[in-house]
């Protein structure tokens, strides 16, 4: 949800924007959320009472590509932020849309991966590995999806030039969120996919 800054004049004890402080606090808090999910996965990844094991179903080349896509979306996102700071509206829309598309590609990949895993016999309730894998990556996927919605919504209202408050700040906030989701994936990719049980 984009927060709005009402006036240009800020009285602020630290000289920093409220929204930005709030966003960083939120991200700090998210570390503990994903930490919990990752720990649950780490504890349970080898516990396969039934169904396939991680080694049997992970498709590293495929996931590497989609990880790469997500990583690059961080670049486009940061370009959008810089465009916003330069008040380059076309640039903002262009880069935001690109970011959303890259994100959507990633989510699409995840949907494909989930279906493939499911067809290979890994359901949500097949094994502890299944439950914790889908929960962790699912939570991440939901975060990416929320990000995509925010990006597209921003493009939409930007086109109607009705972004409330400071536009560059709004873009920057969505950017922070987006990068965070990306760095979570950096961790997931390494710990979940690359390190064998």
């Amino acid at each position, binding site marked *: 949800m984009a927060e709005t800054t009402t006036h*240009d004049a800020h009285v*602020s004890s630290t000289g920093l924007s409220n929204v930005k402080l709030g966003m960083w606090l939120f991200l700090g808090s998210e570390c503990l959320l994903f*930490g919990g999910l990752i720990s649950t996965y780490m504890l349970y990844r080898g516990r396969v009472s039934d169904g396939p094991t991680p080694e049997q179903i992970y498709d*590293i080349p495929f996931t590497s590509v989609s990880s790469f896509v997500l*990583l690059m979306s961080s670049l486009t996102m940061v370009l959008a932020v810089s465009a916003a700071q330069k008040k380059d509206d076309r640039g903002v829309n262009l880069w935001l849309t690109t970011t959303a598309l890259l994100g959507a590609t990633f989510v699409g990949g995840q949907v494909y991966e989930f279906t493939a895993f499911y067809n290979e016999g890994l359901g949500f309730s097949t094994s502890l590995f299944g439950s914790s894998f889908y929960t962790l990556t699912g939570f991440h996927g939901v975060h990416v999806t929320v990000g995509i919605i925010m990006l597209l919504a921003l493009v939409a209202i930007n086109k109607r030039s009705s972004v409330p408050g400071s536009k560059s700040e709004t873009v920057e906030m969505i950017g922070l969120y987006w990068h965070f989701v990306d760095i979570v994936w*950096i961790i997931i990719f390494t710990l979940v996919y690359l*390190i064998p049980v």
Partner: protein
Amino acid sequence: MTTETIEGTHLETEQEHGMSTRGYIVVALILAAITALEVSTYYVDFGPLFLPSLIVMMVVKFVMVVSFFMHLRFDNKIFSWLFYSGLLLAVGVYVAALSTFHFFLR
């Protein structure tokens, strides 16, 4: 702490954060390269270096995105404090919890 800034503080977010578009692209390229290296561990045997190198690369990527793309390096230190305290707390607490399961001894 109480810098009583009225006008102009808001501008702080408007100004360039020391990185040019080129800079961002360079960072992205480095990130891409590290990712490639990471993936290669899957195919090439790194021996005993496997785990530590993966972890190091993960951390480097993480820090690079946070520092450059999320501007923590250029921004006010408070942001770094807030974020890293959450991060380090999470790492500390969960590592401790996992170790009570003898997770790291297996």
